[in-house]
């Protein structure tokens, strides 16, 4: 009985979230035309933002991953027997740092597709 209540309450939460989101994104025609006009005037800036955004993100990501790999290589050099133990957390750390760059890439894609392509 308790399990049923838990399952039903989580389903109710999901339903409420879905309902709220479908309400939040209704837009009128006026807002759309204003947005289109604002967009067409600013293509240059948006493209610049797309390029610079991912560039700076790649810079930070490269530095971060370089430090992580350097620390891992130091650890392996000190203790070659622990190479297997070190490899796992190193891959995990690299992937987490890279995920921040991926978030910036998503924004960059959004902006780049707004101006064409």
């Amino acid at each position, binding site marked *: 009985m308790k399990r049923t209540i*838990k399952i039903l309450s*989580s389903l109710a939460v*999901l339903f409420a979230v879905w309902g709220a989101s*479908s309400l939040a*994104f*209704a*837009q009128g025609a006026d807002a759309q035309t204003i947005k289109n006009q604002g967009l067409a005037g600013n293509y240059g800036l948006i493209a610049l933002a797309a390029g610079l955004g991912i560039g700076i993100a790649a810079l930070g990501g490269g530095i971060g991953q370089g430090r992580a790999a350097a620390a891992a290589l130091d650890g392996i050099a000190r203790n070659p027997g622990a190479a297997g133990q070190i490899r796992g957390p190193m*891959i*995990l750390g690299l*992937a*987490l740092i*890279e*995920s921040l760059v*991926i*978030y910036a*890439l*998503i924004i960059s*894609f*959004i902006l780049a*597709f*707004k101006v064409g*392509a």
Partner: protein
Amino acid sequence: MGEHGTWFDYLNRFEWWRHLDSWAKSKLQRRWLLSMFDTGWTLTHVLVAVLVIAFCTWGALAFFRGTRTADHGVVPPRTMNLRNFFEYTAEMVYGMVEGAMGEKHAARFFPLIGTLWIFILFSNLIGLIPGLIAPTDTLKTNAGIALMVFFLTHYYGVKEHGLAYFKHFLGPTPLLAPLMLPIELVSHVARPLSLMVRLMGNMMADHKVVFSFFALVPLVVPLPFMLLGLLVCLIQALVFCTLTMVYISMAIEHEDH
């Protein structure tokens, strides 16, 4: 650089498929467009996901048939066939779960993590086959998996601690509660978002890189990038599963140990 065609586009020759597609579109398509994500409605990802699940089910059946032998599957097969591959995968994943969560919880969470691993890994890998796409390169599939993980972490936390689990959101001392609560809430909401965007971004970017090199030089040059894509598929499945294990073990840990 839009989506390219898949083998499932040949289904559009059939009238019944077109009817089914437009019926599903009328029921399920969202009314609001969100920037780059309006490349539109497609059921192809669902079909490829069904293909992945069919393959995993076939492998699981081979595994179970292997346990029905006279010695209950203790002796591994000689060659690398499907049963051997899935036994190896199961053992690797169990080792991973045991390493991250300790032996006590490993058996309890092994089905969840194993399923996540196998589904995400094969979904990623099927994107490398020409003519098929990875169902994980859209937010649709990833949102399903990430939201499931999100609700499960809170479910297991409540199951372990009762409703006192929500006191974790308030931080170490009652004085800090107004500061800790928004921070904890935001970080908890950011977890499934980051899980899905990370997986989607990696798969989509990797696919676009391979495709752009394919558009330049179709013959041999995309190969190193497909090898990189293989590595990325494995690493992303690993990262997803490791983060799931970390979130669940954070939700069920007791500080008095």
